[in-house]
């Protein structure tokens, strides 16, 4: 519903459009300052765009040359993860990455990446010979003859990262709005611009476009047409915990022009993931997985790690990378693909649209670069004359999340004796308690998937076969709604269709 009059509560210094990793990193960085800020996300949960469906790798930063935005921002982003890990409790571990080769002709490629990395500031890389590489990773295929090793690469829980950033920003005064879509942007009057959503109207001095796959749509709303975003789909296949420890590092083949290739990833949760594929598609909403790609991915993964087998498959998903295509006006005044255009990130203000900053086309390694992108946005605002006074009440840390599966027996025993809800196990496969689920709901979970991505309840072997209803009951209680209103991931994805107890009453 669009209310006609806007009140002063709806006036902001900065509005961030999009609650993915990029938007969340920016809003948290902004919350360090004395500004009135808010983030608007169209989905029911933050991170439910591209940011929850990716490989979760914090790349070292050698995949792009130093004269791009991607290269240095990736390396800098990687560096910033340690602090985020300490401050916010972002689940993150440096595991290292290996780009493996099977032919000696490919050594120069490794050397090129090593040079790029060094120029971007990536520490500790080295080229491993045949015997070294098999020592580093004993389960590699025997025909691997060398690799580029980068120790600073890591793995992260991308969605948890988004939730923790937003939680911190909120604590520091930022407003976070979900299930609310920006549908148009008005003219700029007296240095403020009107933002119109499906629920309300707001006035803001600055708009930050962090809308991921829809960055072009938001840009079009203010008359910017010099890029479009095309979706490049990546399918990922998650394997059973039985394979825990199969690889220690993230394993890459030599990358191609359009993708870093199919990887073998030791995820933070102890599972192995293989993927992603890379396929340009038409529909930004198309997140289907296909049999062909499934076979291709397992074939490619097996060429690197022969012990991988599809019998270990437990879950599948897909994500679309927001790939920017730069456009120019041709003689007829139509926008066409710029022959000189690259596919680098677009992070800039536009001179003819004051108060509007694009952070668009953030494809891989966007997850890695996000913290550095946020720093860059702050410096753009500063350069534009925004006075950044420190937020006196800023607290850089989040309260310690109580994850019972990570506690020692004694810690857990003590916790349960003071808060018994942590002794009620809801998800048995991943050992998640009622206390943790209630906590997730307090921190903003609105849907079944929202709880799942915050707590892991329903992510294990049985995929929610046992705990779904218990979680739904807790959601219903926490949000004060009926189980019928509970959705998997937002409007239209209701789990149940009818209350049979009411049916009986009718009879």
């Amino acid at each position, binding site marked *: 519903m669009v209310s006609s009059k806007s009140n002063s509560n709806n006036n902001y210094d900065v509005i961030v459009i999009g609650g993915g990793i990029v938007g969340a990193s920016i809003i948290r960085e902004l919350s360090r300052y004395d500004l009135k800020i808010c983030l608007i996300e169209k989905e029911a949960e933050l991170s439910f765009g591209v940011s929850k469906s990716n490989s979760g790798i914090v790349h070292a930063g050698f995949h792009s040359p130093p004269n791009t935005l991607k290269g240095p921002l990736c390396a800098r982003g990687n560096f910033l993860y340690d602090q985020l890990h300490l401050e916010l409790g972002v689940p993150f571990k440096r595991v290292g990455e290996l780009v493996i080769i099977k032919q000696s002709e490919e050594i120069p490629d490794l050397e090129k990446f090593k040079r790029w990395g060094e120029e971007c500031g990536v520490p500790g890389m080295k080229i491993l010979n045949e015997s070294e590489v098999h020592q580093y990773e004993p389960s590699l295929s025997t025909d691997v003859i060398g690799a580029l090793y980068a120790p600073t690469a890591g793995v992260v829980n991308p969605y948890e990262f988004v939730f923790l950033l937003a939680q911190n920003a909120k604590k520091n005064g930022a407003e976070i709005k979900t299930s609310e879509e920006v549908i148009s942007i008005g003219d700029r009057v007296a240095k403020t611009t009107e933002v119109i959503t499906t629920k309300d109207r707001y006035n803001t001095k600055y708009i930050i476009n962090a809308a991921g796959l829809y960055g072009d749509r938001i840009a079009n709303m203010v008359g910017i047409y010099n890029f479009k975003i095309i979706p490049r789909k990546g399918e990922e296949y998650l394997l059973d915990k039985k394979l825990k420890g199969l690889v220690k590092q993230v394993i890459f083949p030599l990358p191609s022009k359009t993708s870093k290739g199919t990887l073998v990833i030791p995820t933070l949760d102890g599972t192995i993931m293989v993927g992603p594929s890379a396929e340009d598609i038409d529909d930004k*909403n198309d*997140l289907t997985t296909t049999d062909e790609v499934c076979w291709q991915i397992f074939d490619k993964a097996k060429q690197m790690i022969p012990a991988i087998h599809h019998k270990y498959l437990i879950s*599948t998903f897909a994500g679309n990378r927001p790939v920017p295509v730069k456009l120019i006006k041709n003689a007829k005044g139509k926008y066409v693909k710029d022959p000189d255009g690259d596919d680098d990130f677009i992070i800039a203000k536009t001179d003819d649209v004051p108060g509007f900053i694009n952070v668009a086309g953030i494809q891989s390694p966007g997850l890695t670069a996000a913290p550095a992108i946020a720093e860059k946005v702050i410096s753009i605002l500063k350069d534009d004359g925004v006075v950044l006074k420190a937020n006196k009440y800023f607290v850089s840390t989040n309260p310690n999340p109580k994850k019972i599966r990570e506690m020692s027996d004694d810690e857990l025993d003590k916790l*349960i004796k003071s808060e018994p809800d942590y002794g009620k196990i809801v998800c048995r496969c991943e*050992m998640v308690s009622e206390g943790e689920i209630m906590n997730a709901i307090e921190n903003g979970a609105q849907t079944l998937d929202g709880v799942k991505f915050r707590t892991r309840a329903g992510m294990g072997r049985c995929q929610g076969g046992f705990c779904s209803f218990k979680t739904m009951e807790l959601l219903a209680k926490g949000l004060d709604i009926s189980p019928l209103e509970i959705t998997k991931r937002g409007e239209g*994805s209701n789990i*149940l*269709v009818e209350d049979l*107890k009411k049916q009986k009453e009718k009879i």
Partner: protein
Amino acid sequence: MDEQYSCVIIGAGPAGLSVAIAITKNSKKKVLVLDREKHPGGILNQCIHTGFGLTQYKEELTGPEYAWRVYSEAKELGIEIRLSTSVIRVSEDKVITTISAEKGIEKIKAQAIVFCTGCRERARGVIHIPGDRPAGVYTAGLAQKFINIDGYLPGKRVVILGSGDIGLIMARRLTFQGAKVLAVLEASSFVGGLSRNVVQCLDDFGIPLYLSHTIIDIVGKNRVEKVKIARVDENMRAIRGTEFEINCDTVLLSIGLIPENELAEMAQVKLDPATNGAIVDENYMTNISGIFSCGNALHVHDLVDKLAVEAQTVGKKVAEYISGGVFAESDIIVTHDDFIRYLLPKKISGKSDVRFHFRVRRPLSDVVLKLNNFERKFPYLQPNEMSSVLIPAKHFEDIEEGIQREIKIWIREN
């Protein structure tokens, strides 16, 4: 150590309760049954259809009624049953760690442990059904729980993939509750569940069953909108030109059950890849002395009555073990031919009669099962029904002494 028991049974489903009863009747030792749920009875609590206890009680009971009988008997015998208590760890030296809201973390030392942890359903990911991942795709057991325990209907136009018993029973339940079951699809050329369930749950309601068919695509952004279906060849590959679509809002999966043995594996118990249950000897003891397994945790049972018989045997053996009895060494390995999908026990002593349980890979008729000079005729054998055969000890006698003693059970078609 907080506490000590002669035997701790993990799981208070029909298997756990029946084993506890049998142990108590055969010894005077202190046993404890643990279950994470608030109520005893395990999976039976959500099976409100009748058909339980036909042979055991000569009555057609519902699941909860059956569970109540077994539970009452256990209570009368004074067996200690601790509910709302999850076992989170079991060590090789038989120390059990539990968690509960009431008592926090506790450790219990047991002389013997019986795993009666039941099984879980195979979920969508395991078989990779391509397509979207909307709401409306559930395992049949979850749908059963939504309806029978929680009182909500999960969908109105339903396609069921897989013809396991839960799927068949759910076809009927959904129909009773006003939903329309549009099809039951089975990728193999024969039904997964009991024949009686095909008749009573599908045929009686005119629900079409498509053998050798599977879902090749699930379509729907938020909630399931339709499925694409195709016929499959013997290698389970879709045959081109046979595709068709059904508009529906729900897909139920009844694609099999997997014994839950993650805890047993922590205690170093070895599993049989054919069943996902423990490898046991003729005493139902695993490779770890004093650790036993019974019920759906050992292998999937289609009838609770057969499970009750198994539990009797296991209970007696456990009673013997905790009373200081010493079993004859089970050093003969039992193997089988390819007609048989699995068979247990896999290790025997050769000194006593053994009842073997087995399932065949495909339907067979007029066959003979053989071991040395033992022969037993079967007019037919079905993969969806567990079969058993009692082989007297004398047939194991002429097994040669050697380093590796092995016998092979095989089937001959007439």
